[in-house]
């Protein structure tokens, strides 16, 4: 008891204490407020905008949140004692300006400062997503972000199957599926969302059953419909990412134009026999201004150069590779991780087992995203199919 008090006295001489109002002012000026309390304490409420790093992992994780050692830190616990110990440890780690919030969260709340009840993972989620939580780039904050994300899948077929399965497994909280087709036995060579027993069922219903069997906690919204210029605005509004797994040019151009209009990331994948293309068309990407699909291909091919879907054929595993790459790009966009395929086209040749990366430049004269582009009006191209340049 006496030793503890003696130590706290020492710490008060080494660490500057601030009251709650001063802490809030510092936070507004750019200081980072660090809540070091236990998860069950945080679950009941925590200062708005605080970084929440449990005391036991503080030194190991703080640099992921605050890489700048000269940043002002205000450490907070419940009553102001644990934060003194924690602040001293952060000083020893190398942070040059560390304060402790006197009176802790009780004082913060007592002064009527803004509090939020943060989303925390429950025990079942901690168990399910444990391998994500171990990845520093994902962690609890990233997993919560995935759980709060909404992704629209255009097509529940070859590309949509692996993409939707991995996104459901990853815990993307809301997956919407748009597909007007029913399961045919000839789909099962590659469309691994579906089963032999479900031949004849709507693909979106079959997909929902599979996705919920894998992860019952996510929300799966189904639209048994074909995307048209009339319904696309209502269907894509509010989504974070659209995964294009469609099989025809009319839908691809519609998806592109609507994504540009709504500022949504358009994860593109397309396949032909044993070759696939992947890119991310997202002119609204903040880090660099990227192209849209029309910058690369301004117009779809005329019908006489677009053979029927059934003629082309595809190696069944190919959409597995391309759709999985689409899922990777989707998760990166949702978490803000890594270097996305904005302005880059990845071409995969399964026969030569080769990836080629090509630059896709923005076309300043693009009719949809170019400098002089006027308000976007959708075009219904009708029933163009399969590949532009085909034999």
């Amino acid at each position, binding site marked *: 008891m006496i030793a503890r008090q003696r130590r706290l006295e020492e710490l008060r001489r080494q660490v500057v204490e601030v009251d709650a109002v001063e802490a809030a002012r510092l936070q507004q000026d750019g200081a980072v407020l660090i809540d070091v309390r236990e998860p069950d304490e945080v679950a009941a409420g925590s200062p708005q905008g605080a970084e929440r790093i449990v005391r036991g992992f503080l030194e190991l994780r703080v640099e992921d949140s605050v890489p700048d050692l000269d940043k002002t830190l205000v450490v907070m616990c419940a009553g102001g004692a644990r934060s003194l110990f924690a602040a001293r440890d952060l000083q020893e780690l190398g942070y040059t300006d560390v304060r402790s919030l006197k009176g802790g969260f009780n004082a913060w709340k007592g002064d009527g400062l803004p509090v939020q009840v943060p989303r925390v993972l429950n025990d079942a989620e901690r168990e399910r997503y444990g391998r994500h939580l171990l990845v520093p780039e994902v962690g609890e904050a990233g997993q919560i972000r995935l759980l709060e994300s909404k992704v629209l899948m255009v097509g529940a*077929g070859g590309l949509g199957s692996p993409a939707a399965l991995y996104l459901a497994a990853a815990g993307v909280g809301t997956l919407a599926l748009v597909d007007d087709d029913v399961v045919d036995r000839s789909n099962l060579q590659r469309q691994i969302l579906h089963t032999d027993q479900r031949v004849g069922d709507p693909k979106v219903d079959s997909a929902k059953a599979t996705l919920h069997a894998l992860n019952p906690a996510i929300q799966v919204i189904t639209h048994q419909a074909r995307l048209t210029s009339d319904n696309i605005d209502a269907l894509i509004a509010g989504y974070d990412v659209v995964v294009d797994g*469609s099989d025809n040019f009319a839908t691809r151009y519609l998806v592109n134009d609507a994504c540009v209009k709504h500022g949504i990331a358009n994860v593109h994948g397309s396949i032909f026999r044993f070759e696939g293309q992947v890119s991310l068309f997202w002119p609204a990407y903040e880090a660099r201004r990227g192209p849209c699909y029309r910058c*690369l291909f301004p117009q*779809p091919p005329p019908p006489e150069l677009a053979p029927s879907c059934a003629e082309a054929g595809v190696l069944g595993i190919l959409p597995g590779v391309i759709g999985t790459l689409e899922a990777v790009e989707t998760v990166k966009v949702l978490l803000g991780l890594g270097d996305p395929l904005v302005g880059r086209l990845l071409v995969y*040749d399964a026969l030569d087992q080769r990836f080629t990366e090509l630059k896709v430049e923005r076309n300043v004269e693009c009719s949809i995203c170019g400098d002089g582009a006027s308000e976007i009006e959708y075009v219904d191209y009708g029933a163009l199919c399969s590949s532009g340049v085909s034999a």
Partner: protein
Amino acid sequence: MSHATVRIPAPLRPLVGGVSEITAPGETVEDVLVRLGADHAGFLERVLGPGGELRAFVNIYIDDRNVRSIDGLRSKVSDGDTIHIVPAVAGGRR
């Protein structure tokens, strides 16, 4: 005369005997394509329109750069360059 390696995309392979790449001579991208067209019937009209222009749904790359950002079909080819033909591909769902 320079020689470039042309990567043939899957949709065009049946027109060139099924191979994934062909080496052909030429000073410009157009020379190389015309040479391939002379050797393989039906190839050229998939890439170039009736007026000899590059089709809007096909892109040609020299290494990783789109020739539309260089000098179009007149873009110069150097020995050892790889030319990629990248057509729009719709497939995916079915």
